[in-house]
């Protein structure tokens, strides 16, 4: 779960990492107790908000009110701005970059730091990014911190400050089951204090059960995706008009891939998982219908799951609830023949192979 900047900063504050004095602003009174100049920052779960007009500096209350109203409601790459963080402007002496993410290959947390803060880290040349891997069995050690911080070209007191920040963000990273904690920029202000001017914190969805203090904000999901998530169904909305239901994440992806081969475009990824529970099948079809695909492509491989059981569930949903778009089915595996009969009986189109099904779905969706 991606946290808004202000939520990430609340966690920073909890761990004793300095952040600028600030608060969420929706109106005039929210600027009280803050000293101008201020920075107004749109709270959206993606980057590039500066260019999109989502960050503005302001020197007085009148100006602040005006700029706030400009930012609120702004559409930034598809996200409508609902929350704006107003913060006191920091006096920057140095800008650094620091993050902890997951190195999947090494299976360890990876610390990255750079003296080139404030820029998109992808645009910083590799030799200016310093890396340190942390073995999860022993956690972060003094030598890790020394090794990475000593390369940032800092003065002694700055080194000390940044070292403390690093040990604190590692603690946060581990204790909150984070996928990513990024501070860009981590500044040294003219008072010599290390301070996080931005925050990017992503908490591992699978670990949310032990972080009940973090209120879920599924900001990056569509309303249907949120709905699916609550039902425990893997459901992703895509750009196209063909809704794919398959069992297993890999098979569902492969089905979407097959469509493109025939110039079809997937509109929904829906992984039924290992279930043949009629209730789950029903929920899946309901979600799919709400996404309004032009064609539904149902691709099943029956391994442990029996094809005919799933088919019976599908038939029952279709006959009871009706369906207003063609459903192409491709069934393989245990009891496939019985399943095909049941689906044919329910009025669905049964294809012979994956390619055949993908072609027919694509053709139908393309209006051919």
């Amino acid at each position: 779960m991606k946290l808004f900047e202000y939520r990430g900063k609340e966690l920073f504050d909890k761990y004793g990492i300095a952040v600028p004095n600030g608060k969420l602003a929706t109106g005039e009174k929210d600027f009280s107790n803050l000293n101008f100049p201020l920075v107004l920052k749109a709270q959206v779960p993606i980057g590039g908000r500066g260019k999109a007009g989502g960050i503005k500096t302001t020197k007085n209350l009148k100006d602040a009110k005006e700029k706030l109203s400009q930012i609120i409601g702004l559409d930034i790459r598809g996200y409508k701005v609902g929350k704006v963080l107003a913060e006191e402007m920091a006096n920057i002496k140095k800008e650094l970059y620091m993050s902890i993410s997951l190195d999947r290959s090494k299976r360890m947390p990876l610390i990255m730091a750079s003296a080139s803060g404030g820029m998109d880290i992808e645009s910083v040349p590799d030799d200016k990014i310093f890396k340190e891997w942390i073995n999860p069995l022993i956690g972060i050690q003094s030598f890790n911190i020394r090794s990475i911080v000593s390369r940032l070209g800092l003065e002694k007191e700055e080194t000390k400050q940044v070292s403390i920040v690093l040990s604190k963000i590692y603690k946060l990273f581990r204790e909150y089951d984070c996928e990513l904690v990024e501070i860009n920029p981590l500044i040294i202000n003219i008072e010599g204090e290390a301070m996080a001017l931005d925050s990017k914190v992503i908490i591992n969805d699978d670990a949310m059960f032990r972080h009940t203090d973090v209120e879920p904000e599924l900001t990056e999901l569509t309303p249907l995706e949120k709905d699916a998530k609550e039902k425990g169904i893997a459901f992703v909305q895509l750009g196209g008009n063909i809704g794919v239901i398959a069992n297993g994440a890999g098979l569902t992806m492969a089905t979407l891939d097959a469509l493109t081969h025939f110039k079809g475009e997937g509109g929904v990824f829906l992984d039924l998982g290992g279930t043949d529970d009629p209730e789950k099948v029903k929920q899946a079809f309901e979600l799919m219908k709400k996404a309004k695909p032009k064609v539904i492509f149902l691709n099943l491989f029956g391994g442990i799951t029996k094809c005919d059981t799933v088919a019976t569930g599908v038939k029952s949903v279709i006959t009871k609830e009706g369906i207003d778009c063609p459903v192409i089915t491709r069934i393989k595996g245990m009891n496939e023949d019985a399943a095909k009969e049941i689906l044919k009986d329910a009025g669905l189109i049964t294809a012979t192979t994956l390619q055949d099904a993908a072609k027919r779905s694509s053709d139908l969706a393309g209006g051919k």
Partner: protein
Amino acid sequence: MAIFVDEKNKVLVQGATGHQGVFHISEMLGFGTKVVAGVTPGKAGQDVKGVPIFNTVHDGVEETGADTSLILVPARFAKDAVFEALDAGIKTVVTITENIPFHDTMEFVHYAKYNDALLIGPNCPGIASPGKTKIGILPGSIFLEGNVGVASRSGTLTYEIVNSLKEKDIGQSTCVGLGGDPIIGTTFIDSLIAFEEDKNTRAVVLVGEIGGTAEEDAAEYIKENISKPVFAFIAGRTAPPGKRMGHAGAIIARGKGTAKSKIESFKKADVKLAKFPTDIADLVEEFV
């Protein structure tokens, strides 16, 4: 021969008395797997399909000589279960459980290394060496004993591919379900090393998907070290960045983990790529 597991593995099931446990113990016994023990705290003395249940893995190992554990417990208890298995001396741990926090997985992956143990999964269907043993939830009916090794990050997709191999009478030495999580124990490279050494394996099929760089790492490894032919299928060519495609590990993050990058890497390593999952069998058939 086979890799990682064979008819000698003595399997203990953690989470044995639940619905899934009972069903799969029965399925495994039917496949010929030596299931010797089950563990559910507080249920010692019971049995599941004739398999005795113990309170602790330690007790199960002591009584039955189990050397392999199949983890079927819910996600929030999985780390404890894997730790328990490793501390009890289990040397092969197959973790089926999905949705385990990856920080937990990181810890037990490294703890498995400390114990010189083989860890398969998590979030995987298990492993099968046809004709010898099946440890996990893979459907027994799709397999055929033979000479093709399969390693895969996906479950049903693997069944589909293995089934299509079988339909062409191409048997398998071992099929390893590596798991769909961002952090997994046994990797493509580990499997390739073992398949390369295994006299009974003549070709290897890798089933990859978006997310991470496991396929890229494997491609690099293949270039230098693998003499046997390798075939691959990559799922997720049309997946958008930033979306978790069913598997926790199937996500394109910060420009990394695209199918394009994986496909190109494999091409450079002379790995033959299939367009459709069902094509793999055709490619392998040509070779065989």
